[in-house]
């Protein structure tokens, strides 16, 4: 069964050739938050491309994710300015606090972690962003406080990640 939203995207690209691969993958990720195995197979069938090739293209670009993101998607900036402000340490601290590696999603589905290139807020370095909300000048010690804020928010909303 093709998920209806993927079907919708593929219909929009009826008769498309291999040059449409990246735009289609982008739209699928926009709709699902990531590229699932099933989605990749649907796209490769639609374009008549081998799945190994679609995986090859998708894994080449950092923008594509292969696991469902958490309710809160945490991005740690690893751009030059943040690097100088020791964002490597920040990334490690975040990973330790969440118990996951960059590219992974926590078991409760609440958080996912991603290391990203410059987010364009160098004056605030080092930057940690959660669902697009920037947290400025984040030291390793303040990571837990920030994460707890979002945990509390989830509890208040009465939702979990699932």
């Amino acid at each position, binding site marked *: 069964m093709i998920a209806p939203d993927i079907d919708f995207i593929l219909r929009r690209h009826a008769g498309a050739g291999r040059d449409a691969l990246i735009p289609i993958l982008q739209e699928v990720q926009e709709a699902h938050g990531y590229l699932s195995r099933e989605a990749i197979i649907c796209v490769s069938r639609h374009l008549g491309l081998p*799945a*190994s090739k679609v995986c*090859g293209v998708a894994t080449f670009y950092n923008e594509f994710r292969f696991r469902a993101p958490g309710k809160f998607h945490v991005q740690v900036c690893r751009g030059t300015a943040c690097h100088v402000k020791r964002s490597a340490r920040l990334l490690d601290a975040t990973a330790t606090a969440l118990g996951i590696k960059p590219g992974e999603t926590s078991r409760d589905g609440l958080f996912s972690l991603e290391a990203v290139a410059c987010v364009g807020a160098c004056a605030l370095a080092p930057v940690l962003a959660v669902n697009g909300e920037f947290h400025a000048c984040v030291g390793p010690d303040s990571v837990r406080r920030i994460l707890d804020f979002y945990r509390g928010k989830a509890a208040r909303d009465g939702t979990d990640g699932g």
Partner: protein
Amino acid sequence: MITIDANGRPINARPGEMLLDALRRAGLSVPTLCHVEGLPPSGACRMCVVEVEGQRALVPSCALPVSEGMKVRTHSPRALRARKTIVELLLANHPDDCLYCVRSGACRLQDLAEELGVRQRRYGGARTASKVDTSSPSIIRDPDKCILCGKCVRVCEEVQGVSAIDFHGRGSRTRVSTAFDEGLNVSSCINCGQCILACPTGALREQSHVKEVLAALDDPKKFVVVQHAPAVSVTLAEEFGLKPGTDIAGQMTAVLRGLGFQRVFDASLAADLTVMEEASELVDRLRSGGRLPMMTSCSPGWIKLVEQAYPDFIENLSTCKSPQQMLGALVKSYFAERQSLDPAQIFSVSVAPCTAKKFEAERPEMARGGAADVDAVLTTRELAQIIRMRGLDVGALAPGPADSPLGERSTAGKLFGASGGAAEAVLRTLHFMLTGKELEQPRMPALRGPKGLKETRVRIGDLDLGVAVASGLASARRLLEDIREGRRRDLQFIEVMTCPGGCVAGGGQPLGAGPEAVEARMQALYRIDRDERVRTAHGNESVGRLYREYLGRPLSNRSRKLLHTRYARRDVVL
């Protein structure tokens, strides 16, 4: 022709060709790790860099078109230094386990490190620690030994049209992998082993059955028999330093006896049986309006491709088992009965030029009563390894004849080893079956040679038969697409061999063979066909006796039970 100056010497070059090709023709050996003869250059490895006058940087000769008056230096200190550095960098994260590596002695990376005088580790890189993929019955992938030259990826895509593997990730994290990093066994890999032939290192190798075979030979309770495929006797010699195209059938039989095999059978005889059954099946389809064009079924990589990518053509496949499986079935039925042996006591080994035969032998369809008909499959390379291990001198042994009753073949069966040979063999017998007369010209030049797609029309009585032969699955796919689109209604019979050129160029054959070697191997089979007397399957007395004594006639109930099978759609990620 244009003239270029190489190392101060004028050499001829063809306009438009790449510098590397011109240099090699002139006898100048410039090393490469990523070049695949016959495919467009990829320029990935940079080993073939040369100095070109007027150019500041070193230029990869594989991707540089020649031009009149070009002046190049192929082995200048600068070029040599660059090559050596490349090898040193490749070695930076390469496992240092040459002594234990299956490719030791046949590894291009090892050769180049030797040739360029690499004597110490100058760069220490972080090692990768990937899992070795042993999931496939045919091929083992050891990603840590991969140098990312891309030859396997290109052969899989461009020669075979399969694309089971591709580059994943990027930069220092680049790796060659299947879709979703899953095991080769569940991927679209068709087990052909062309990637193994292409690989310059030990990153790809066959799933070895050497241990099992040695154990069986050592077990007094086992009755160990062996069959050898048509294309093995004309390639095994290369493993022992003889030139490509040397046929050593007799010595090989003697060696197999020397190794302790109690019977040495010839799969070419089973190929003769395949001819009888397949020709009868074609007659049947032509007369009863069965599904046409009928397609041959002796190549297991091709069968898997049809099952997974062209299930609408499964009905077109001949129901015949491959010669290996026909002989396997007869050994554990007919032969066992004649010898009063319990089939469970027999250990049946096949020597094949092929890695996909390992997969085929394990197919559930190929087992009867819960036991496989063929217990182990050795590639030509593995047989050579066993011969060396046991210290046998192939050249010193007196040639021996194959065993009766499953050892005597015609040259028609032998031709199965070259692309087009199976079709030629079937047409000879088909003519006899339909007209009662032999073909006046049994040799069919149009179906011979290494081309990927060959065609001919044959007149048999009032029948005008369209025959096509494809080898290399990319060629076969093009043909299938044409048939699907309804453009090839003129064809009634199609032979497909998975590997380009047929079994002589199979994935289990000796490494390092270029197009000339493959051509020489083909010619060896053609010479056998030219020189011997029995050139048709129906003219093979042993085949006649087998039908009289046991099978009845082609397509009889017993033949159908032992020699035929059915295929079904296979669900894999394409």
